[in-house]
């Protein structure tokens, strides 16, 4: 186990290094000019050149990357070109909101997805199964904007049960989390359904049935834990997905997460912020997968980490 962990951590570090190199290169070859963006439209060519030097953008790309990496290993993501604030500070300010929304969203996805998936599997082939699966497909393919605005309009504006967006207490979290739960729940429903169907075919289930156990008891106690692995792997992926920010849902509900920061930075070619956010979300993806893999043996003792 320690050897496995060490190997995975080294792998993760290499992946992050790769991500940082690719992102850095992509941003470098962007046909836009951050120096001109900072210098403003009244600046002369000489003034733009001066800004370019100050930002270090006149250096060869590998020198620039080397400098960036050297600061990065010291935990310094640099300062935003336009806001002038430390990027670590900007990201840290958004992380709690992003993490909270991520937890809420994954919880909703699990509640909606696993329940529906297990139900559909147990009723496999019936009209109820088909209805659930079509419903899941509809929500998965609906644009975020539509669900978010509809929920906001009905439950916040019209019925007044929840605030019209904002960040603060539990009431603020419900609608954005449910929106994401509805959007992502469909994936969980599909994965859960096929996984449960597979387990249902196995011998121990037949044995349980032969013992005369109640059908729902079989699904809840014997099947679901055995069918949980693909779902857990999916949570690992979801952590990364949510940590990179959910621009649309954030902006409908005024949720101060990382997506809003990223979106604005991309529009302004604020390279240090774009780099920082990319690295943080890459970290989340890598960690999410690592955690999912580490948890697996506890769910299914047949798995050994080597």
């Amino acid at each position, binding site marked *: 186990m320690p050897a496995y962990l060490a190997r995975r951590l080294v792998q993760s570090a290499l992946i992050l290094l790769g991500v940082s190199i690719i992102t850095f290169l992509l941003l470098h070859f962007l046909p836009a000019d951050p120096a001109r963006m900072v210098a403003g439209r*009244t600046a002369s060519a000489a003034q733009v050149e001066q800004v370019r030097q100050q930002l270090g953008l006149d250096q060869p790309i590998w020198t620039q990357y080397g400098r960036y990496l050297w600061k990065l290993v010291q935990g310094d993501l640099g300062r935003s070109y336009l806001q002038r604030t430390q990027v670590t500070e900007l990201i840290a300010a958004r992380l709690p909101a992003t993490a909270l929304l991520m937890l809420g969203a994954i919880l909703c996805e699990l509640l909606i997805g696993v329940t529906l998936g297990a139900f559909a599997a147990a009723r496999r082939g019936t009209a109820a199964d088909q209805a659930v699966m079509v419903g899941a497909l509809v929500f998965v393919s609906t644009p975020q904007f539509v669900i978010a605005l509809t929920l906001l309009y009905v439950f916040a504006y019209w019925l007044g049960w929840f605030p019209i967006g904002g960040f603060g207490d539990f009431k603020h979290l419900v609608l954005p989390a449910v929106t994401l739960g509805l959007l992502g729940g469909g994936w969980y429903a599909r994965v859960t359904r096929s996984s449960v169907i597979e387990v249902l075919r196995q011998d121990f289930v037949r044995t349980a049935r032969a013992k005369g156990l109640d059908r729902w008891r079989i699904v809840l106690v014997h099947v679901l834990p055995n069918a949980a692995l693909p779902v857990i792997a999916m949570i690992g992926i979801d952590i990364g997905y949510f940590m990179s920010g959910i621009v649309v849902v954030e902006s409908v509900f005024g949720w101060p997460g990382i997506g809003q920061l990223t979106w604005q930075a991309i529009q302004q070619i604020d390279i240090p912020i774009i780099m920082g956010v990319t690295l943080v979300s890459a970290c989340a993806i890598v960690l999410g997968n690592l955690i999912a893999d580490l948890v697996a043996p506890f769910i299914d003792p047949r798995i050994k980490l080597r």
Partner: protein
Amino acid sequence: MKRLLASVSLAAMLVAAPAFAADIKQGGEMTVTFKDDLITLDPAIGYDWKNWSVIKSVFDGLMDYKPGTTELVPDLAESFEVSADGLTYTFKLRPGIKFHNGRAMTAADVKYSLERTCNPATQSPGAGYYGALKGFDEFQAGSATELAGVVAVDDSTVKIELSRPDSTLLHLLALNFSFVVPKEVVEAEGPDFGHKPVGTGAYKVTEWTSGQSITLERNTDYFKAGLPKLDKINFQIGQEPVVNLLRLQKGEIDIPGDGIPPAKFVEVMNDPTWKDLTIVTEQLHTGYVTMNVNVKPFDNVAVRQAVNMALNKERIVQIINNRAVPANQPLPPAMPGYDTSFKGYAYDVEGAKAKLKEAGLEGGFETDLYVANTDPQPRIAQAIQQDLAAIGIKANLKNLDQGNVIAAGGQKEGAPMIWSGGMAWIADFPDPSNFYTVILGCGGAVEGGWNWAWYCNPELDKRAEEANAMTDPAKSAERAAAWGKIFTDLMADAPWAPVFNEKAYVIHSARIQGPQGVFADPIHIPVNYDEVYATDAQ
């Protein structure tokens, strides 16, 4: 691109204003929303239409504009004198002005602030405006440690010397980039000053939660009696304009800073309650098509004139719900110097075809039209494309990110035609020179510049210089007329096809009111925060 909206009152509004400003009590609060963060409130750096007006409420400059007008008045200065040659301005500072931290403001702070903006290390996007200050070039190059043109004569006197006459100087001293900051706070906060600003203005910033909210509270020591009216302004950041409109209708917020989203525009304007709370203002904006004179066949003036005649501007304006008026010259109607008698090129398809024939291009030609890829710009470009097709010009649309369009425009033979929408041009200050130097003058026709037509007419440049040298305030009408003539004469060469001048719409809750003109202020978007008041505090 960072840009700034400025606007001029168009419609008289329905405002229940008390008869005298003095009757209005201070107190109450209001909530303003923006989708995007304000980025910074550092006056040397902030340069977009959202933070521009907030900065004006936190800081002050030597000059300002009389609320609701484009009339210059002394602000931190009590009075000023101009030398006969127009090269020396002497400002007497108002006594007793304090920064938010309690320290008295002096002439040394004015000098420090201007030097800070002009210092390349500050990376101020406004530094380029102050090139006429004596010693600017040396200071920028680092061969001088101070800006020779700004002298603190004593604690309450500032002398500003110019290396060439510049009649826009007073505007430049009303521009945010010249606003006065306290040296000790700037140095202590370093780059974080933009989020922890300290100025002399009507409000002080008491809280800034990145990406979420900003709180301004009344500066009780403000030097203008009775101002500001409100105790507190809450800025809420991050929500969609369409949701903010719902919140306004629900009474949760007072001013949605992003205005009315295009999709909701017709609905709101047909609603009797909200129609009366919506104020239309004419912006100092012109949308235009540039034709690169370095690229064939646009090197031929007849072709450029043909394009001008081919555009059906009325129809293009309809595409954006009539939120603009057709334009015939570079200057917008609200700008001094606008020539109301000038007719420009009328919509005339046959005439346009005749012009093409004159250029020997009877069969038309193929070219590229660059456009920023955010709505409604591509739709406008399609309308332009159709109009051009009607006279035989096949324009291929290049829908690109605005940064790429700007980059192509700044290359000598980069973009044959550009539709300027979403990128240019809204004046930074209400003076016609702001529509010439960078976007139509020879100085802007350089690699990376903003003169996308690459039009350079040395004779007009000379006349522009002469107009700018008319510093005597008594001659301002003459100067504006000289400028106006430059723009209408320039239309004979037709480097641009001016298309329309956009209007802005400010919507507000009935609870927040202000003196006549406050919601259509030419300088402040969406509103002059110092002047509005809460009816529930009365």
